[in-house]
């Protein structure tokens, strides 16, 4: 848990608050800032990939059928994907989790 949240004792911080493991930001859960989540209507989705391109956190990845699916571990619910989607396939719904 400490790894995901960055909540550790001052004694466990690396010297000078450095990060000693490269790429460890991938382990930092930032999805819990979210108050809204994107929901894609795959009936409307045209697989254009605009959500993948515009997402500032690279949340979307393409699945084997060609659709883009979000990784909610990082999604902050900013809504850029919903705003940019040319097919109006993405809507923002209130986060309930």
């Amino acid at each position, binding site marked *: 848990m400490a790894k995901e949240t960055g909540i550790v004792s001052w004694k466990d*911080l690396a*010297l000078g608050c450095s*990060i000693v493991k490269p790429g460890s930001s991938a382990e930092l859960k930032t999805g819990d800032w979210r108050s809204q989540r994107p929901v894609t209507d795959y009936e409307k989705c045209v697989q254009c990939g605009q959500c993948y391109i515009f997402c500032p956190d690279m949340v979307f990845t393409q699945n084997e059928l060609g659709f883009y699916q979000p990784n909610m571990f990082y999604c902050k619910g900013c809504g850029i994907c919903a705003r940019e989607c040319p097919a109006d396939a993405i809507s923002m719904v209130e986060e309930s989790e």
Partner: protein
Amino acid sequence: MAKRVGIEVSLAISEAVKLANVDVIAAYPITPQTHIVEHLSELVADGHLDAEFIPVESEHSAMSTCCGSSASGARTYTATCSQGQALMLEICYIAPALRLPIVMTVANRSLSGPISIWNDHSDMMMSRDTGWIQTVAENGQEAFDLTLHAFRVAEDPRVLLPTIVNVDGFTLTHVIEPIEILDQKEVDRYLPPYQPQMRLDPTNPVSIGPVGMPEVYTEAKKAQDEAIKGAKQVILEAWQEFGDMFGRYYKPVETYRTDGAETLLVTMGSLSETAMIAVDQMRTDGKNVGLVRLRLFRPFPFEEFLAAVRGVKQIAVMDRALGLNGAGGPLATEVKAALYDEPERPYIWNYVAGLAGRDVTIENFVEMADGVEAAAADGVRQGYTIINVRE
């Protein structure tokens, strides 16, 4: 063997830096620090010192370069003062937070305005809460010795904090004094090669200086606070060992004729030597006056200071900077805070003196000692006086 030579104090500091065998010097010249870095650039250019001398375009760049250099594992030195230190101040907070053991000489000088190049402690006070270890020299020999001590302390794996050696501008930097210059073997015995505990290294990548979210910032500051508090023990050990090797012993709080004193003067820096002459004179005149000098300014040596002043009736604290906050000088404010928890507190009066090179004479110190006794007898509170100000 150490050799006693007549040398300008600035050049003696450069010689100490050379003997410390630094890897990188990044500095921008500013009066009265100029001779230090000028001489270092000569030593590098003439092949006497195998180091990178980086002539940066500003003090902000100087400290930024020093941070990068120190983070790469290089022994790093710079020097500045006053406006230059003000310009680098943003980065001065970064160096201790990243635990980079940079050593810096500050040739203490007043801050503008009015524009002034002359000596006081305004710059020392400006940087007092940046997290650097700070020592204060009273003469040229101390400036030389404390420079070597600074590298030894800063780089100790138990410390890893940048260290400032404060040296009064002109009053010390520009005078020629007989100074014992240690030889390379002696310095090497005292100062082992720098062993970085963490460094920028492509084969073992780390991120130094990342953002600290609210979840981590408080813990980062707590760790830094513990580091500077813990540094005192190493500072003391390094002074003890210096004394054992070379015969000159230093203490965080130095006392002079304090036995049986009812009144104490508190000073920092080169004016302490004038104050000692004043104390001798007052003792001859039958006055029970002694002197306490702070050699270690950061971390503040609470324990040693309280032990040095315990039992006296009154203290005159001399500040060489004005706080401009209605409370007089910053040193007196700290001294009062240090004494607050004591069951028996001496009476304190604060004298602001020696601003921007204004002379402080033996008579002025007598005036301070007499003044604090008179003020204590009158029971006036919360006071300070600016010495030698024309009404």
